[in-house]
């Protein structure tokens, strides 16, 4: 018995201490790699891996190879908390990247504040602005010097989407939204903005996403939407809702001019489905974006992972890690103040184009805002960019 116990202690000690012997800069990544949000987390990891490969091929960080340690949060707050503290105290990282899920982000804030590493966070888009009696992520830590947010806030998403809607020239918009912290406040904000822009919103109706216990029968909600006969159906939900929603809209013979959706991602093979025709969607990155950066990213991504990125989270993760590498190299040190200064002032590469951190309503360092967003339209099996016009690859067509 005793020798087993001794061996165990040695093993645990090795696990705990072994990593400190590694040289060079290490960045800790928190992502949901298992459970319902695994798709997003795995997409992030794929983006980090591509950036890591390129960074190290280009000489690494401060002359040493960069390392990342990816921890699975399971999208569970308590697990995420333990994972963050492992990164801080066992792996001794000074930089944190990744992130997804408001629940996990809220759980981490207290501990972020304690350790105050540089946190460059992709997840937690719920700003809290516009929700009475609820403090969102931006309200809670936006002002911190060490907090860098690499994803538009919820109001940016809504701003972009409503700008697109207004540009289409439709008069009436029916809103369908999934009923969690993502779609609920988002749709309320969209309704307010649309009405400010002079549009009519005859109906805002909630549904239960397939991601959160729904069985994908949206006919009741769609029938109500059809009864409004609005020019546009605008829905906010998750990627697994795309197929049932779009097919049931047609099955129920609802023919709005536009079916516009804003999920966090789109199922990759959906383009080939007949119900995809003329569906429009908000997205953060398109593999066919006609810019050299986007093309290079997509090519490299396919080389590494064998398929095009399904999810714009990969592009944001890629941007996230490159920003760290460039800022630390520019600072020439891992000293926090110097790196923060570089992050504040620097311009960084990304598949979406050059970007930098700017203040948002509360946050000091906000990367990507309204102008991240593109609207694409499925046209004959291809996702054409239709908005904003300067990036468009094809004109928007009506479904009627």
């Amino acid at each position: 018995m005793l020798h087993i116990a001794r061996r165990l202690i040695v093993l645990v000690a090795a696990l705990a201490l072994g990593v400190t012997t590694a040289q060079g800069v290490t960045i800790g990544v928190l992502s949901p790699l298992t459970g319902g949000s695994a798709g997003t987390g795995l997409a992030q990891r794929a983006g980090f891996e591509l950036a890591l490969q390129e960074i190290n091929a280009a000489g690494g960080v401060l002359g040493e190879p960069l390392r990342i340690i990816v921890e699975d949060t399971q999208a569970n707050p308590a697990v995420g908390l333990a994972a963050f503290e492992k990164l801080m105290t066992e792996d001794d990282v000074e930089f944190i990247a990744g992130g997804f899920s408001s629940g996990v982000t809220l759980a981490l804030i207290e501990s972020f504040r304690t350790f105050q590493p540089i946190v460059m966070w992709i997840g937690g888009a719920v700003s809290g602005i516009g929700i009475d009696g609820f403090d969102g992520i931006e309200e809670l830590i936006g002002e911190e010097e060490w907090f860098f947010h690499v994803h538009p806030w919820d109001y940016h998403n809504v701003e972009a989407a409503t700008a697109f809607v207004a540009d289409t020239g439709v008069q009436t918009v029916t809103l369908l939204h999934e009923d969690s912290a993502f779609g609920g406040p988002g749709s309320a904000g969209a309704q307010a903005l649309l009405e400010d822009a002079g549009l009519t919103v005859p109906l805002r109706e909630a549904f239960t996403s397939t991601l959160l216990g729904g069985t994908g029968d949206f006919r009741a909600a769609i029938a109500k939407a059809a009864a409004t006969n609005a020019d546009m159906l605008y829905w906010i939900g998750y990627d697994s809702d795309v197929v049932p929603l779009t097919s049931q809209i047609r099955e129920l013979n609802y023919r709005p001019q536009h079916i516009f959706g804003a999920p966090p991602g789109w199922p990759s093979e959906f383009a080939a489905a007949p119900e995809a025709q003329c569906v429009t969607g908000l997205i953060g990155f398109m593999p066919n974006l006609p810019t050299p950066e986007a093309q290079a990213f997509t090519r490299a991504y396919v080389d590494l992972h064998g398929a095009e990125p399904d999810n714009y989270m990969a592009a944001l993760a890629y941007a996230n890690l490159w920003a760290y590498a460039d800022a630390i190299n520019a600072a020439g040190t891992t000293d926090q103040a110097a790196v923060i200064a570089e992050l504040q002032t620097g311009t960084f590469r990304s598949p979406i184009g050059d970007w930098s951190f700017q203040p948002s309503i509360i946050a000091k360092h906000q990367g990507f805002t309204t102008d991240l967003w593109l609207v694409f339209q499925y046209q004959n099996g291809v996702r054409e960019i239709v908005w904003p016009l300067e990036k468009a690859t094809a004109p928007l067509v009506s479904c009627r």
Partner: protein
Amino acid sequence: MDLNLLAQALVSGILAAGLYALVSVGLALAIGVIGIVNFAHGEFFMIGAFLAYQLFVSFGIDPVWSLLLVAPALGLIGALIYTSTIRFVLKAPELNQMLLTFGIGIILTNMALLIWGGDPRTIAGIAYRSIGYQVGGVSIGLVPLASFVISFTLVLGLYWMLARTPIGRAMRAVAQNRTGAALVGLEVNRVYLVAFALSAALAGIGGVMIAVIQSPTPGVGLAFTLKAFAIVVVAGLGNIRGVLFASLFVAISESLVATLVPNGDTLRNAVFFAIIFAVLVWRSRRVA
């Protein structure tokens, strides 16, 4: 109230009962005949859905035809799982069976995550998913109609099999009295094997349906499993016809509430489980 909406709600509800019955009937067989509470049943749907997807992507096989391949494939997987694990816990307390099947479910989910990733997959290129027949202002969806017909055919077929065929009679005998069945020369273990494989095969068919109407993901089975468990229990364990009636009742109720109440879709689960709770409690008080 718009009469059209009401009629649509009724039609949608009735058709939705087909899918509910389909996902429940395999579970009813497992619980009713073998007496095993299979926590991995939802993962069987999930595997069925991914198999249909893979057959489509790799060989261009339409889900209509992959039904014929996925059902036996799941039957085989079910038989393997039965032979390698389930048969060792038949006499164990039901909690042991739950832990075992929960463990199997975790293994299957995470294997699917490794193989297919976490992003939703899509069976693209099938035209019938969006087809609805307009009858007097009410739309009848082709897929819900087909799944209704398939489901009721399967359920009635299963009912017939249990009543009329030798293996069906053997299943009923084993379900009622395991020892007695063994005494009259039935190979109980073989009957169980067949019943479990059949249960998995039926889950496979449900999985193909799910793959058609939504996107296969590693977690796609969960919502259906919770509801299937509830339907099977309310129907009365092993009561195949009861599954049909229970499915119709809850599906129509859900559809009506979802249509008539603002934001009613988000009340579907509440309506469903409130009915289940009320029926179970009411029945327990009535009998006493």
